[in-house]
């Protein structure tokens, strides 16, 4: 990949929620079937400009997440293209039955955007953290699950979802994130993992905001002569199994990195494929089975070893460096 931002930029951070709002505003001006639904969440979803520009295409349901998803399913069943923007912690838990029955089972094409996901609500605690959402949503048949790494990928994803024929749960964080791509000029395909860095000593598989950590790790390991492959698994479901088997075969060691419980998330999904196809040593790094510690995202990441320093150390141990 020649458009990967191997080094983190300085000062070029932008929140993915802002990108989603801008992209949808642009698309919805032309496509009158696009509706954004919020649960008193237009502020946290950065949807205020959308609401002001296209008031007829923003539907407010108040603090009622079950109703939010049910109404969206009804709209989709009537030919509309609803994008739901609600905090991941509530959307993926309070309304999970509506997601399972009204959306996935009924095959209504609702795009569920879990905002402020993972630990990005920081100090607000476990009620607002969302580190079980991938486990829950990926177990629902007929629902696809995605997590973009930066603004470029977020924009590509939203554009792809307008005409995508399967309902999706897409999770983003709250805070501005570093770029992982240099620009928007690359091919994006739902369900196709992106090799962000080549290398045959070890592979780091990451998704969402941990992709940046993976790239930083690869950069750090490069200085010690270790060549790290970085696989951006932006689509958790359908999982790019071929890409996982390939890195297992070619690099022999896999580290997964996720802003999610170590139960049932990216690491679990990858190990399901690895263990049944080409078993190799794996390390799963994520949030352990406890109410996550509170603090800013980098602080929480550091605490749980989602950092270039720690991942480098683990990679070296695996390699026997």
């Amino acid at each position: 990949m020649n458009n990967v931002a191997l080094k983190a930029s300085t000062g070029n951070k932008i929140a993915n929620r802002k990108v989603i709002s801008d992209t949808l505003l642009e698309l919805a001006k032309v496509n009158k079937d696009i509706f954004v639904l919020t649960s008193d969440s237009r502020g946290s979803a950065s949807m205020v400009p959308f609401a002001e520009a296209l008031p007829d295409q923003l539907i407010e349901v108040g603090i009622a997440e079950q109703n939010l998803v049910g109404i969206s399913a009804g709209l989709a069943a009537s030919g509309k293209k609803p994008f739901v923007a609600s905090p991941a912690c509530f959307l993926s838990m309070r309304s999970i039955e509506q997601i399972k029955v009204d959306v996935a089972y009924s095959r209504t094409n609702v795009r569920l955007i879990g905002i402020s996901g993972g630990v990005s609500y920081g100090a607000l605690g476990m009620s607002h953290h969302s580190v079980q959402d991938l486990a829950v949503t990926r177990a629902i048949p007929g629902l696809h699950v995605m997590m973009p790494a930066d603004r470029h990928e977020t924009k590509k994803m939203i554009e792809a979802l307008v005409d995508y024929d399967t309902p999706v749960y897409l999770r983003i964080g709250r805070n501005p994130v570093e770029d992982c791509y240099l620009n928007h000029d690359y091919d994006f395909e739902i369900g196709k993992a992106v090799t962000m860095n080549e290398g045959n000593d070890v592979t780091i598989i990451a998704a969402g905001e941990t992709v940046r950590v993976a790239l930083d790790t690869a950069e750090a390991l490069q200085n010690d002569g270790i060549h790290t492959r970085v696989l951006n698994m932006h689509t958790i479901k359908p999982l790019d199994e071929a890409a996982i088997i390939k890195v297992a075969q070619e690099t022999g060691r896999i580290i997964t990195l996720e802003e999610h419980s170590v139960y049932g998330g990216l690491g679990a999904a990858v190990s399901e494929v690895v263990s049944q196809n080409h078993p190799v040593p794996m390390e799963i790094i994520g949030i352990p089975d406890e109410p996550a510690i509170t603090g800013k995202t980098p602080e929480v990441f550091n605490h749980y070893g989602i950092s270039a320093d720690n991942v480098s150390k683990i990679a070296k141990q695996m390699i026997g460096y």
Partner: protein
Amino acid sequence: MVDALFLKRKATEIRKDLLKMIYEAGTGHTGSSLSNTDILTALYYGVMRIDPENPDWEDRDRYVQSKGHAVESYWAVLADKGFFPKDELSTFSQFGSRLIGHPNNKVPGVEMNTGALGHGLSISVGMALAGKKDNKSYKVYTLMGDGEQAEGSVWEAAMAASQYKLDNLVGIIDHNRLQITGSTADVMSNEPLDEKWRSFGWEVVEVDGNDVVELVNTFKKAPYVSGKPTMVLANTVKGKGISLAENEAGWHHRVPKKEEYEQAMDELTKQLEVLQ
């Protein structure tokens, strides 16, 4: 002009069909399905604009059965209307059949998969909103149980329908006052339902929910107030039509034994003979 005799005969025939399905399958919601048979008959034979040849017609009226468990009357009506062959009713609840124990939208005529209570009204709000956005004249009808009123999500949808002035939405409560454990008043009292719905901004109309003619006339007059959703509080008898099941909570999903089945079919046949 409502053909009263036709509607009453139809409701009785549907009762025979559903009872046969439940008896042969050895499973089903007997009391619940008999309770709402007249409501479904009124909607499908006297009120709704639908086209079984073109089930996805975009101007069709929509029906969402939020109390999904009472599916047997629904299957019998859809088959009789020609959405699928009537002989398929014999596959009800059989291995791999699409006629499962809850509405299944792989079957033509079914809008949504339901079965988890408290979902249908929200979905219907979405459909009614879409109709308003598109300036369509279709109506959305949603059938709920009275026990279902204990689900909090019902009231989330109630607020939204009123907020968005969805006068193209007609809610129906199958108000038989019984649920699986016993009397709704004992399990979790929800009365007064009429006042509750009025206070949520709905126009409430109370009818005899087993009088198919009164039901048709009531539905046809909706909306009663421009800009307000309508709630039809349909006072019904659970197990209506067969004396051994009427007003018996135990018949919620009880399957008749051979003698009970024969007695019930006999009763329904006699009711048909009177309706000549």
